[in-house]
């Protein structure tokens, strides 16, 4: 450990350290946790210079980000998501806006002020080398309900220190996303099951034929939807508990669907009508209360194929990271190149 760290001067609304999740301990009732939006996590890590298989831990921020003071010679960050960000060069200095979806290098004594996250739930701040909190069961992901992982198993609070694996940024140009990642649009694709037989034909028709609204009860564990009630068959809403896959949609007796996300329990006793395709899970995790969705059924093979396509596009987006424009001025060369590529004349 380098002794380098980021100090939380002001916490955001719900900042937690997350990596790709705690894999291999679900048989002991240990939820995986992990980043809600694995695509944004991967892009943030790539921008910061972390290899995909390093599974570096980053900061997941919800609704409002924190203000962080740099206590390291320098640190390279990868910031991904629609988050307001500014750099305060020294105490009392005027904040200078920073662009998201690119990397930046900050130096000792500078403050990174992160503000509102607009239009989606989460944004991600990766650091070169990763956030070096101690791993638990092979992962640094915070699971707040059992108070483990991350920083003392909880969301960040004022005065916390995020340990950094490196004390300085490696010398290289800053990188930016060539284009925002396309998360897809239209209905959320779902695979019926595992308890499809616990619902009537009419119940299934309601599920795929109606619009559902994300309620205020939406967090890392899951999203409760509001809308038309789904009818159970004679088998009823309850089952003898079985395992829960990521994106499972359970329907308790009240008839309203609940999508189970990163902090979902490993097993549960409500019937599950369908499971969200893994390619549409990041998009689901970005939903805000009040947003409307529809569900469309596909097969397992179609869902696997969607996921492989998405992973190819993610790899292509990472391969296409381009040098970022220097801050505080127009880089004519970059602008020129961009115009040639885009065919856009300003």
């Amino acid at each position, binding site marked *: 450990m380098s002794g380098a760290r980021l100090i939380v001067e002001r916490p955001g609304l719900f900042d937690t350290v997350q990596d790709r999740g705690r*894999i*291999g*301990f*679900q*048989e*002991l*009732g*240990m*939820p995986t946790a992990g980043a809600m939006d694995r695509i944004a996590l991967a892009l943030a890590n790539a921008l910061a210079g972390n290899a995909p298989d390093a599974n570096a831990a980053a900061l997941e921020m919800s609704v409002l980000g924190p203000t962080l003071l740099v206590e390291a010679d320098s640190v390279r960050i990868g910031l991904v998501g629609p988050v307001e960000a500014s750099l305060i060069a020294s105490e009392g200095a005027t904040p200078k806006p920073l662009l998201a979806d690119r990397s930046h290098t900050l130096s000792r004594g500078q403050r990174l002020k992160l503000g509102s996250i607009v239009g989606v739930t989460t944004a991600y701040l990766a650091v070169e080398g990763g956030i070096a909190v101690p791993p*638990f*069961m*092979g992962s640094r992901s915070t699971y707040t*309900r*059992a108070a*483990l992982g991350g920083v003392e198993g909880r969301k960040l609070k004022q005065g916390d220190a995020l340990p950094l694996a490196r004390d300085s940024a490696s010398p290289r140009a800053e990188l930016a996303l060539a284009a925002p990642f396309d998360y897809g649009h239209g209905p959320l694709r*779902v*695979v*019926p*099951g*595992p*308890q*499809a037989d616990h619902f009537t034909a009419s119940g299934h028709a309601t599920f795929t034929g109606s619009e559902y609204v994300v309620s205020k009860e939406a967090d890392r564990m899951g999203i409760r939807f509001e809308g038309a009630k789904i009818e159970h068959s004679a088998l009823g809403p309850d*089952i*003898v*508990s*079985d*395992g*829960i*896959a*990521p*994106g*499972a949609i359970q329907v308790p007796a009240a008839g309203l669907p609940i999508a189970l996300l990163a902090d979902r*329990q*490993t*097993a*549960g006793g409500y019937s*599950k009508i369908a*499971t*969200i*395709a*893994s*390619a549409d899970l990041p998009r689901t995790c970005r939903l805000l209360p009040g947003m409307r969705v529809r569900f469309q059924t596909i097969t*397992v*093979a179609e*869902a*696997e194929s*969607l*996921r*492989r396509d998405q*992973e190819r596009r993610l790899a292509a987006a990472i391969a296409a990271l381009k040098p970022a424009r220097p801050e505080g001025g127009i880089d004519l060369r970059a602008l020129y190149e961009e115009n040639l590529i885009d065919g856009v004349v300003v």
Partner: protein
Amino acid sequence: MSTRFLDCGDTAFSVEFGSTIAPEINSRVMALHGAIASERAAGRLEGLVETVPSMRALLVHYDPLTTTRAALQPAIETLLAGERAAEARSRRLTLPCCYDEPEFALDLADVAQRTGVSEEEVIQLHLASEFHVYMVGFMPGLPYLVGLAKPLHLPRRASPRVRVPARSVAIATEMSVVYPFESPGGWHLLGRTPVSMFDTRRGAEASTLAPGDTVRFRRISRAEYDALEAEAERAPFDIARFVEARP
């Protein structure tokens, strides 16, 4: 009921052996869980991420970037065809439990009254029960212990408690549980164990029990309870001390 493969999206599927809580069903879950672990230890079943046993089904998590459902299911079916009794690799544990009223055994009098046996008989029946861990879930380390003596079978409490202390030992239906953390709960509280069900100080060995384990309870006095609790505060228990040595 025949074995069913149920769709759980493109990263998991469920192998369901039945719809009830029964030893012949759970033993098949555990047998497949064990068989898959052996295959993976031998470097086979690439792309299979982990398996999660529950009362009556095994959830198979897989990575759709490495394998497919179409490739994995036949491999699992082959394992089912060669099914044999679960290897006796599970452990037998004896956990200390203090049944003192009123602090720990909050529902002892109530359970005695509802079941029509004396409070001492309730304790003796719980001590006489041999439990099998059918699954660990709901919370990290929470064991579902099946095998409660029949006279003690009761539905859950009509109104759940908002706060059940950590390490409470409780019963409902044909099961006993031990709460790993303070949490809400609707089971009848009979006692408390000084042994944490999930001690993060042990790292990857945090969970005291695993699916397939056999568990009995041993009655301890309040003085022994206090001594063990104080010991656990200083350092986590080595679970081996509660495991019966194999002959």
